[in-house]
């Protein structure tokens, strides 16, 4: 059948003492998402979906460190991503890699933007369908 080894990946890599590491400061994302009422359904594959940063309705605007969308040129904020990220790239970024072509702080800002995505915004269904890889 399918590879059903996901269950035992939950506890991650054990250290020598049988204890395992817990990254309290790893990714700024406690809630990956909160389920919202749906009349429609999203069925988007991780492999072929995209997340623009920001969404086309706010193209050209900057992304602040906390993920909010701010006016172009705002001090401390980051330029829009030149191309949409794929679901796969975001998935990897959530597990620790930087999004392609981003600095550490820029990566954090973009991830904060992505986790603020809401139903109806471009990229939300893609993000919603992401799953964390077992660590």
């Amino acid at each position, binding site marked *: 059948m399918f590879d059903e080894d996901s269950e035992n990946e939950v506890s991650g890599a054990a250290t020598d003492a049988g204890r395992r590491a817990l990254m309290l400061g790893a990714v700024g994302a406690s809630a990956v998402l909160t*389920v919202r009422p749906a009349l429609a359904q999203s069925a988007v*594959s991780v492999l072929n979906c995209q997340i623009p940063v920001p969404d086309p309705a706010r193209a050209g605007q900057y992304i602040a460190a906390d993920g909010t969308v701010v006016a172009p040129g705002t001090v401390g904020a980051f330029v829009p991503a030149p191309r949409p990220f794929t679901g796969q790239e975001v998935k990897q970024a959530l597990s620790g890699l930087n999004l392609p072509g981003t600095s550490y702080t820029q990566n954090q800002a973009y991830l904060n933007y992505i986790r603020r995505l809401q139903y109806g915004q471009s990229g939300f269904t893609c993000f919603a369908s992401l*799953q964390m890889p077992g660590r």
Partner: protein
Amino acid sequence: MRHSTTVTIGPRTFRIGSDWRAPVDAVDALYRDYPAPASLIPDYTVRLEAAKFARRLIRPSVAICGDYTLPEAVPQSLAHGLISAEMAMNLQMALGERRFLLLHASSVEKGGKVLIMTGESGSGKSTLSALLASRGWRFMGDEFALIDPLTGDVCPFPRPISLKNEAIGVMRGMLPATRFGPLQADTAKGDICHLIPDDAAIAAMHNPAPPALILFPAYGLPCDIRPVGKSEAFVRLTQASTNYTALGEAGFDALARLVKNVPIGAIDYPDTDTALALVDELWAALP
């Protein structure tokens, strides 16, 4: 109302009232093989009302009303009265159902175990359920899969299958003409023709069965099988459900149990023969 009828499908009974005779006659014809309502009290009331007095005289159009109504629903042509009735029944389920967790999915059963197929319109879940039903599976529903939070079982809701466009010709070539409702051309979704479930499916419409496999089919892609992670499946199924949030904790329990206990995968297929082969392969590999 001037004309009315009552229809029972699985656990749900609908009372349908209409300002015109034709839609009620069409419903009675389509559901002629279904047993008489088990309960004299319906779960839902559906009303097909004349949209506006002036319009009723000039060009009759049907407003879809009932216990649950969408304010922005567009009135339908009276010529498509049967579809209006079906849409209205779907609407009551989608907005009103509070006993079962309702998934926008088709379901078929074999050997006492259920295959659930969920996906957007165009994924082929409806056509695949019709094809599987013609190959020895029991048809349980092509629109809504009802998950019973008390048992975890899938409860049948075997409505007539709403075939669209090319699928009509495909199925007509395989099954006797008596199994089909009238062709309704030029609806908002193209041509629609209803396929009446076979006698066995209707006779077993009160018999639930446990789920054994969930598939997310996608039509028009090269053949592929992928596992779908439990958390991804959980989120996607909340979005495939119209009443997950309204059910509160019962919905959470039902969905968590379903996702944890049942293998879940995605299949991409270029044609229906491939899809059927993939389903057979995955079904045979079940523990």
